C-alpha cells in the first residue's frame, strides 16, 4: 500500500460517493413512477341502470387520468351482460360475473381509439385496421389480444366503472397492460406486467 495508492483510491471513493449522492436520487426520480400503482382504485358513476341493454353498446365518457383536462378523459362502451351470449371467463369461476361489460376504446395494437359500429356489431380501429367482435375479441388486423375492459358494479341503481384490466383470448383477467403486449401463448412471457401490480 503506497501513499499514492491511498490518495488515488480515496479520491475515486469520495468522487464516487459525491456522484452517487445526486445520481441515485435523480435516477430514482426518473424510474420511480414505473414502480407505482398507476391506476388509482376509484369508482366512477357512468349512468343509471336503465340506460343500458344487452343488445348494443352505449358510449360514456370517463376520466382515466386526473388533472389532465380533456386529454385525461376516454370513451367507454357499456352494455349489460348477456349470460346467454357472452362467453364465460375463467376468472369468474365460482363467482358472480361482472354485471356490465365496459369496453375500453384503446386499441390494443398501438392505442388509437376504436369505434363501435352497430350495423356490423364490431369495433373498428381507424389507424391500422384492427377489428374486434361484439365481445371485443380480435377478429382481424394487427391487435394481439381482446380490447381491455373496466370493472363494473351497480350501486343503488347506478352503474359504476372501476379499474381497467386486460384480458386474454379466453377473457381471463390480467392486470392492465400496455397496448401491443401479448397475453396468450409463449408471447405472454416476453411482456412482464408492471412491478406494482
Amino acid at each position, binding site marked *: 500500500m503506497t501513499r499514492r495508492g491511498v490518495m488515488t483510491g480515496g479520491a475515486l471513493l469520495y468522487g464516487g460517493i459525491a456522484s452517487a449522492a445526486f445520481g441515485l436520487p435523480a435516477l430514482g426520480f426518473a424510474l420511480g413512477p414505473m414502480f407505482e400503482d*398507476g391506476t388509482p382504485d376509484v369508482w366512477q358513476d357512468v349512468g343509471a341502470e336503465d340506460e343500458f341493454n344487452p343488445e348494443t353498446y352505449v358510449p360514456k365518457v370517463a376520466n382515466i387520468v386526473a388533472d389532465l383536462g380533456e386529454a385525461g378523459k376516454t370513451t367507454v362502451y357499456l352494455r349489460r351482460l348477456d349470460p346467454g351470449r357472452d362467453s364465460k371467463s375463467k376468472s369468474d369461476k365460482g363467482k358472480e360475473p361482472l354485471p356490465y361489460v365496459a369496453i375500453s376504446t384503446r386499441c390494443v395494437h*398501438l392505442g*388509437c381509439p376504436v369505434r363501435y359500429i352497430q350495423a356490423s356489431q364490431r369495433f373498428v380501429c381507424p389507424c391500422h385496421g384492427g377489428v374486434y367482435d361484439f365481445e371485443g375479441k380480435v377478429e382481424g388486423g394487427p391487435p394481439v389480444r381482446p380490447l381491455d375492459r373496466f370493472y363494473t358494479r351497480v350501486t343503488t341503481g347506478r352503474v359504476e366503472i372501476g379499474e381497467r384490466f386486460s384480458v386474454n383470448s379466453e377473457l381471463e383477467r390480467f392486470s392492465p397492460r*400496455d397496448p401491443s403486449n401479448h397475453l396468450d401463448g409463449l408471447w405472454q412471457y416476453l*411482456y412482464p406486467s408492471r412491478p406494482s401490480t
Partner: protein
Amino acid sequence: MSKLVPPIPKFLRPAPPRPGRNGAGGENGDGNDKPGTAVKLRDGAAEGGTQVVGWLDERTGMSPFLRGALYRKVPKGTNWFYTLGSATMFAFVSQAVTGVFLAMYYNPDPLRAYDSAAYITNEVFLGELVRGMHRWGSTVMIVLIFLHLGRTFVFGAYKYPRELNWVIGVLLLVLTLAMGFTGYLLPFDQRSFWATVVGVNINASAPVMGPYLADFLRGGAEFGAVSLSRFYAMHMLLIPGLIAALIGAHLYLVAKLGTTAPPWLKAEKKSLSQEKI
C-alpha cells in the same frame, strides 16, 4: 499612491520599439519624424487586434488547437457534399437558439400547453416566425443528418481509423430522432397527443424491456400530466445536452483524423505517390 492604481493594460501602453527597427524606433521616439494621425490610428488598430489575440493566446494556449482545427489540410477533391455535417450542426444551433426563446413563452402544463403554444403563434411579436423556424428546422435537421450519413457511407468515410466517429454519428442520429419524437408532443393538440400515445405504445411493443420503457417515457402507467413535463425536460435539457457533448467529440475526431478524399480520387492518388517514389 501609484501602487494602489492597477497597472495599465499592456495594449494601452505605448508600444516598445520593435527589435528589427531599433534605430528607426529611437528616432521616432525622439520626435524628429512624427507619423500622421491616420497612420498612427491604423497601426494602433492593427497592433490592438494582434495584442488582444496575443493576450488571449498567452493565457489559453489556444492557437495551436485553432490552427489545427481551422487550417488543417483537406484532401484533393473535397466538394460540397463535405458541408453536410456543418449544415447539420448549423441546423442544431438554430434549433437550440429558437428553442431557448420558445421556452420563454411555452408552458408545459397539460391544461395550458396548447394555449401557450397558440399564444406564441398568434400574439407574440415574430412568434409565428420563431416557432415556424423551430418546427421546420427540425425537419431540415433530420433531412440533413440523413444526407450526411449517406455521404459518409457512400464515400466510405466510416472506415479505419474513423469507426468511432461513425458510432458517435449514429448516436447523434438516434438522439436527433428522439428530439423529433419528444418535441412533437409539446404543442399538445390532438395530433401531437395521439401521435405520441402511439409512439409510446410502439416502444411498449418491444419484448421484455418494452413495458418498462413505455412506463419510463410516460412517467407512470397512464399518459398523464407528468408525461408532458417529462417530454419537455427530455426535449430541452437532457437530449440537447447529450447532443452538444457528442458534437464536441465528433468535431474533435474530425479535426484529429482529417477528412477522407472522395473514393474516385483514390486510384489517382496512389499512382501519383508511386510516381514520386
